[in-house]
């Protein structure tokens, strides 16, 4: 079953005094449960826009996005927030973490929103940190951690609540090659172990080479049809 369905989605940015920007021009896409999929394309091709629409962070101008069968159009801000909390994990390019929270608090943030008690939260975060090699960083502040470690915390936060999909917008763009590759390998392993769907955007051939499937966007349109 497709965990994400994108149907004829367009997104037109209309800013005052500017010509309308057609960021997406009728994109359709199906993503199956457990896929490890990359969105590729040059800068400005619409990768971030598409990920935002899938994650309910933005509203499509036309068309429909469904996550786990749930159509996003017509949901209120609050309903979208709850949907993200329960089914979608996010990893951004940088500044993912809340600096006043410790690594463990950052990673447990979604669990707290879900109402998971603090002891269980801590236990689940610790299990993930052990798994991804962050065991000694539970109580560290993000600003004291390296970029690669911070991205791992962001990955931990995205997967600890066992979402259906993790959306990662250029997760390795601010990391050096080796660190980026290690992060990709980690996500790949978590994808295999836990069956979590990963959708990420990237320019990076190293990242693309690790994807099961690559969807290429140019000027807001898919050019390499999905298989």
């Amino acid at each position, binding site marked *: 079953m497709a965990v994400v369905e994108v149907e004829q989605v367009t997104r037109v940015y209309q800013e005052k005094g500017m010509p309308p920007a057609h960021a997406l021009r009728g994109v359709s896409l199906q993503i199956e449960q457990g896929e490890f999929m990359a969105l590729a394309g040059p800068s400005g091709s619409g990768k971030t826009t598409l990920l*935002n629409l899938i*994650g309910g*962070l*933005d*509203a499509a101008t036309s068309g429909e996005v469904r996550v786990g069968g749930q159509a996003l159009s017509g949901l209120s*801000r*609050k309903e979208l*927030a*709850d*949907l*993200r*909390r*329960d089914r*979608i994990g*996010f990893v*951004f390019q940088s*500044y*993912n*973490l*809340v*600096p*006043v*929270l410790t690594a463990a*608090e950052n990673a*447990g*943030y*979604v669990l*707290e*929103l879900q109402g998971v008690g*603090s002891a269980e939260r801590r236990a689940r975060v610790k299990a993930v940190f052990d798994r991804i090699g962050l065991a000694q960083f539970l109580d560290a502040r993000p600003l004291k951690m390296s970029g690669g470690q911070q991205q791992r915390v962001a990955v931990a*936060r995205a997967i600890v609540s066992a979402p259906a999909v993790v959306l990662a917008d250029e997760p390795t763009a601010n990391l050096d090659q080796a660190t980026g590759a290690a992060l990709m390998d980690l996500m790949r392993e978590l994808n295999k172990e836990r069956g979590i769907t990963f959708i990420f955007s990237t320019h990076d051939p190293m990242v693309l080479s690790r994807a099961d499937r690559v969807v290429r966007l140019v000027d807001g349109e898919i050019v390499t049809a999905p298989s």
Partner: protein
Amino acid sequence: MSGPLSLGWRNIWRNRRRTLISMSAIGVGLLLVIFYSGMVGGMIGEAKNQLDDAGMGHVEVFASGYRLRREVGRTMPDVRAQLHLPPGAQVGTRVLARGLATSARGNEPVQVFGVEWAEEAQLSAHLRKLTSGALPAAGDDRGVLIGEPLAERLALKVGSKVRLMVQRADNEMGADLFRVRGVYHSIAPAIGQRQVYVSAASARALIGIEGAAAHQVVVQLEDPAQADAVAGGLRAALGDRVEVLTWAELLPVLKRMEALTDNVVFAMAFFVYLLVGLGVLNTMLMSVLERTREFGVLMALGTRPSRIIQVVLAESFWIATLSVVLGSVLGSLLTWQFSRTGLRVNPAESLQLGGMIISTLVKTRFNPLDILEATAFVYAMALVVGLYPASRITRLQPAEALRRT
């Protein structure tokens, strides 16, 4: 713990200096409002409770018709037996006359108060503050008490002779020689210059009235709020022979000031908080908007808009709470300190306003209710100051918030 309150608490310390400045601004505003309420409250409260600086009563009874032209012939009999007063009330009877005091140096217009010494000493603060001499003894029909300014103008001191001349009830002039027994100090120069005190008996002899006749009965109450009830009771008991007036009628200025005070304090608080609030709003707005991206991340993770608002409100709540602690502690200390020592607000000892004498040594009134009110104001301000920046964030789509750096 990363609930809104905890997150808000940590967020306010991200820019320690900014928080301390906001906190000081609100704290000082609160301190000002608390102290000002205490001062105005103390000033009015004192003027109302302690009419003895002016030797006035919360209720005064006059012989019917006397007040109109102050004719000494219009007297009333001794009514003291008919007065039913609440406990703690102090009563005094006065025989009044206007005339001239003459010494070797010259003469000065005066108001002669014929009093029972013990009673009058309770009613008039200045009779308890003699700079020289003593109250005349009972039965001393030649003794007179004068104020410092008059003593100076007529070159009188204890033991000096002074002639008092007044218009008698039969419209003739009456005069007699008195001896200064004491000189008093009043905080109001007008009193010290005009009012001279002799025994009631010698005043009656001077103006030629009989028995226990008098012109005025002065009643001071422990609780000025009882004035209307007491006055009503006296009117019923004494009927047409007398005219009964309350402090509100005798001192309409004081009554109006009392009504005005609450509004004045409110307006002052409003403007202080408006100014402080605008400053803090600006700071809050800056501090929230520069974290737009971070709020975008929180929204992306599934934080509901209402919770985003809670996080921002928690920040203004904590700043308000710190300010309240700071401002109310300092404000209370200051108000409490000056409620004991008093604060001289003018080089003169007193201000006279529409017959009212206000001591310029203001003893602030320490009223916990004032502090509660001022605190409520701060939290109301914090709510506004938090809601606006919060709404600027929740108005954004998460995607937009994430694009901001």
